[in-house]
Structures are given as C-alpha cells and as structure tokens.
C-alpha cells in the first residue's frame, strides 16, 4: 500500500506502529490465556521470571505475563471507548455550534465551558466513589468520555468558524448543497487531522486517568488493567520486597503504550494535514 510506504518513511510512525503491533499481539494473546485472571493462587507466588513464567508471578499467585496481556486489553478497551464516544460528542457539538452560531452556539458553548470549569479530578473521584461497584470497563470508558469532550468541542468549533468564512463554502452552497452535505463533503476532510490527533490525545489521557483512579482504589480492583495491576503491586509492597517484575511490568507497558501512541499520532496527523496533502498532490 502506497500510503503505508509513505508513512513508514517517518521514523516516528515506524516506531509507533511496531510498538502498537507488539502490544496488539499481547492483546490477542490474552484470549488464549491458560489462566483465569479473576482467580487467585493459581501458581506459586512471587517467583522471579523463569522459563515457565516469562515475567514471574505476583503476590496473588498469578502469572504476571498473562496478567499483563489482560491489563493491556482492558485498559485499551476503556481508553478506546472514552476516545471514540467523546469524539462523537465533540464533533456534534463543535460542528453545530460553529456552523449555526447565534443562540445555539452560545448554549452549547455554555454547557461545554461549564464542564471545563468543573474541577475534573474532584468530580471524577466523587463519582467513582459513588459508583465503584458499577464501574465496569464500559462504564469507566463512558465516564471518562463524559469529561473528555468539552475541550475538543471548542477546538473543532474554532476550525468550523474559520472554514465558514472561506470562499469554497459559498461555492458549495451555490452548487446546491445543503448544510449537512456541506459539512460532510467540505469541512470533514479538513478537520480530520484535528479530530484524529485529539482522539489519540484522549486515549492517552484516558489511560493515565484510569491508572490514577486505580491507584486511589476507586475502581473495581478485580478487573485487571494497567492501573489495577500497579495498584496491587503497590499494595503488596512489591518494590520494597524486591519483586521488581511485578511493578515494572505495568510501568514499562504504560510507557511503551504512550510512546507508541504519541509517535503514531504525530506522524499520522502530519500526514493527514491538509497542507501536506496538498503538497503531495503537486509532487506526483
């Protein structure tokens, strides 16, 4: 595929893509796990990495490697739900507010600004405390999505405001297009890089937030995620006891995931940027 080839010329994409592929394999592997990660004491505890347990075992009596595969899978599920749902809301709000203007704009931006002003951390903690038992993966994702759309809605709105003033908007209207066609055919292609980069940002943010909530003990600790793994490792004092494999695993995996997301996001955004696309059209 020509596009992939072009993208691979950027080292950031190459690094990000390969790392994400690696993590993806781990996620797939989680479906073949010989252990059920809900149950404890399935293997000898606190064993260092060896041939039978690649990353050792933890204090709950579970294989750390398989725990890690589940952790990545679940964290990604939360983050992806958060990312995509918040994009949908942000796009709807941003486009409608930007294009319609007037009172609609003011109301929508009022709501959005209201959400921005709320001290996010406190509210999240409160809500998480109240809903702790109900915080399944999906619900955590939805909760994070609810707080993640406001900033990007405003960014998208600004883009739409400036696009509205450009002459091709008028040409499109004169060609008989209605508002919906106009937005989809004319504005979307130009706002895609913005939407994409905010998506990745949101995913990275969600991963971080999940870890924070987990460390504070505000999620269901029986579901293995990067955050809960870390939380358990801390609770069982694995650092002090010298069980480095248990605490390092989620840390390293998180760093790898975030670096991969960053590289991927930066390179793909640049590739999708209208100005770069325009340059490429001329270069052929």
């Amino acid at each position, binding site marked *: 595929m020509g596009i992939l080839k*072009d993208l691979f*010329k950027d080292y950031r994409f190459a690094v990000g893509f390969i790392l994400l592929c690696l993590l993806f394999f781990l996620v797939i592997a989680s479906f073949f796990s010989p252990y059920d990660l809900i149950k404890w004491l399935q293997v000898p505890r606190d064993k260092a990495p060896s041939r039978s347990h690649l990353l050792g075992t933890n204090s709950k009596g579970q294989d750390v490697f398989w725990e890690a595969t589940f952790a990545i899978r679940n964290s990604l599920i939360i983050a992806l739900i958060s990312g995509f749902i918040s994009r949908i809301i942000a796009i709807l709000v941003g486009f409608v507010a930007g294009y319609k203007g007037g009172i609609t704009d003011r109301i929508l931006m009022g709501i959005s600004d209201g959400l921005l002003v709320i001290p996010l951390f406190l509210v999240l903690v409160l809500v998480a405390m109240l809903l702790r038992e109900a915080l399944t993966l999906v619900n955590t994702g939805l909760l994070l999505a609810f707080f993640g759309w406001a900033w990007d809605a405003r960014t998208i709105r600004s883009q739409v405001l400036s696009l509205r003033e450009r002459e091709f908007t008028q040409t499109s209207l004169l060609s008989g297009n209605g508002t919906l066609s106009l937005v989809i055919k004319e504005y979307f292609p130009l706002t895609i890089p913005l939407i994409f980069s905010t998506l990745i940002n949101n995913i990275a943010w969600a991963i971080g937030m999940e870890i924070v909530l987990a460390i504070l003990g505000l999620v269901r600790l029986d579901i293995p995620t990067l955050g809960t793994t870390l939380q358990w490792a801390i609770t069982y004092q694995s650092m002090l006891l010298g069980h480095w494999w248990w605490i390092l695993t989620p840390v390293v995996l998180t760093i790898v995931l975030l670096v991969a997301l960053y590289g991927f996001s930066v390179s793909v955004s640049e590739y999708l940027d209208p100005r770069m696309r325009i*340059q*490429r059209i*001329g*270069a052929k």
Partner: protein
Amino acid sequence: MNAIIKVEQLQAFYILEILGKRKTVKAVNEVNLDIPENEIYGIAGESGCGKTTLLKALFAFIEPPLQICTGKVNYSLNGKFVNALSLNGKERRELRWTYISYIPQGSMSVFNPVKKMKVIYLDFLESHLQGKANRELLTLARQHLEELGLSPQILNAYPHQLSGGMRQRVAIALSTLLKPRIILADEPTTALDVVAQRAVLQLMRDIQHELKNTIVLVTHDMGIHANITTRMAIMYAGRIVEEASTQDIFSRPLHPYTQYLIQSLPRIGDKTTRSSVPGSPPSLIDPPPGCPFHPRCVQVLDLCTREMPQLQDDETNHKVACWLRSDQNVRHP
C-alpha cells in the same frame, strides 16, 4: 549614472524535498542588473516570475529552502563594491534598515496586533540607536511622521484600528526612519484601492525626493510603473527580458512580452477590444528550453526554442533579451 547595487550572474533557487523527491525552483536565473542611484526603479512581472526572490536576494535575506547557487549582489559602500552575500550575519544586520530596507508584500499584517504603534516604533528604534532615552526616540518618531504628512496620533493606535492604506503608509514610514540609501518595496499597493494607492505612491515619491535615495518598486501593475518609476526592468520566468527608462518601455517596447503587456491594458475612454497573452506563465521547476517565452510568442523563431537570448544594449541604454532584436540574427525591428 552611478549604480548603487550591481547584481552579477545571480542564480537563486529554491531546493525542495517532497517525499524524497528533489525539486528545484529556478526563481532567479542568471540575472544581471545595475540599479542606479537617486531613482525610483521598477521591476515588473507577474506572479511567479521570481521578482520577490530577486528582492530577497537584493536584501541578502537568504534562508533555506532558498539558496544562492552562483552570482554576486554588490552594494556600493564607501565608494567600493562589496558582495552582500559574502558578509556574515552580523554585518548584514548592521546594514539592514540603515543602508537598505525592505517593505514586504502584505506588510500591513507585519505589525504585532497586540502592541500599539508607539511600542513597535520604540522597539525598532531602540535596537538600532543605542543609548537614547525613550522620550527622545518618541520625539524622533513623531517628527518623522510629521515630515511625511502623517498624523503623530497614529502612534497611540493599535494596528487593527488603522485602515489598510494607513497601515501601509506607516510600514513605509517605519522603513525609512533611519534614512536608508535603498528601499525595496514588494507590491506595496496590491491590496489597496485606487485612492489609498495614490496616497501611498505619493508618500514614496516624497520620500525619494527628500532623501535622494533609490527605491526599487516591484509590482505587476504597469500603471504604477508609468506613474512613478523612471527606469524599469521586465522580468519573466526568472530572467530579465527588457530593461530601459520607463518612457522608452512604454513608447518603444521591444520584447514581445512587454508589447503584449502594454497593449492588453484597458484605458478609460477606449472601448476597443483587447486580448491577453495566449497560454500561461511557465513553471519555474521545468522552464521551457531556449527563451522561456517562446511557447506563447507569436513571432517565435526556430532559434528561440533552442537558445536563450542574452540582454543586449541597443545603444540608447535600452536592453532587451530577444532573438528578434539581436544583431546575431539580422532583422530590422
């Protein structure tokens, strides 16, 4: 006629790399030019002919992807000619605004929108005239504006509070504060309407009269050239194709491109049909072989498609680069 800038065999290209492919835009292609002292000198040409690049080279403002491949831009300093392109960054900066100044295209947006004009002026003056108090500098600024017929009240305004025409005049005033010997103006009136344009041109004429320096005015508008320049050059596809006094260019245009340009201009009082030059301006990445104008020229000869004609003087200080006029190709004009 003394020259204040001598351009010798200048080649300035943009080297671009897109997706691993290298493209060279030959913006200024073998230009030789003598810019005289104490005159308003015009450079005419359409968009994409290389005139902005030529101005950047004259100002010795070369930043990647622009590169100088060969050639010199000689400034006349203290009776000697010094190649500006061979000077280092510090020396170039010292010359800027004191010896030579530059008014870029769209200079109306050159001002910082959150600073008052007063602050912009002070910043500028402070960096060039060390050791003077703000009050003194402000007085200098006010005096300067008054000399040019602009109201000193402007200093208290923000850029967006002034109209386009006013901002442009202030930009010109700022560039002449330190009384430079050469002023380079790139399309100074493009976005302005006719009345504002007139005010701006008036200002430039007054400045030139006062300082007796050289103004190099680049624009595609032949009407402006006719109005204030005394000598001009016509640029096409990165080369100078004709160079003469403004009077001569209009009364006796020798190059087919110049002839077309002048003929196609509509005038009030005259409804006879006019036509454009056929075809379109060439790409600077891949210019046609031989004379770059030949694909659009009605009087094209076979020689034109193979070899590039050089600029030749016809004894009346009127230079043209065209095989039709060259004495190697015996023909009567």
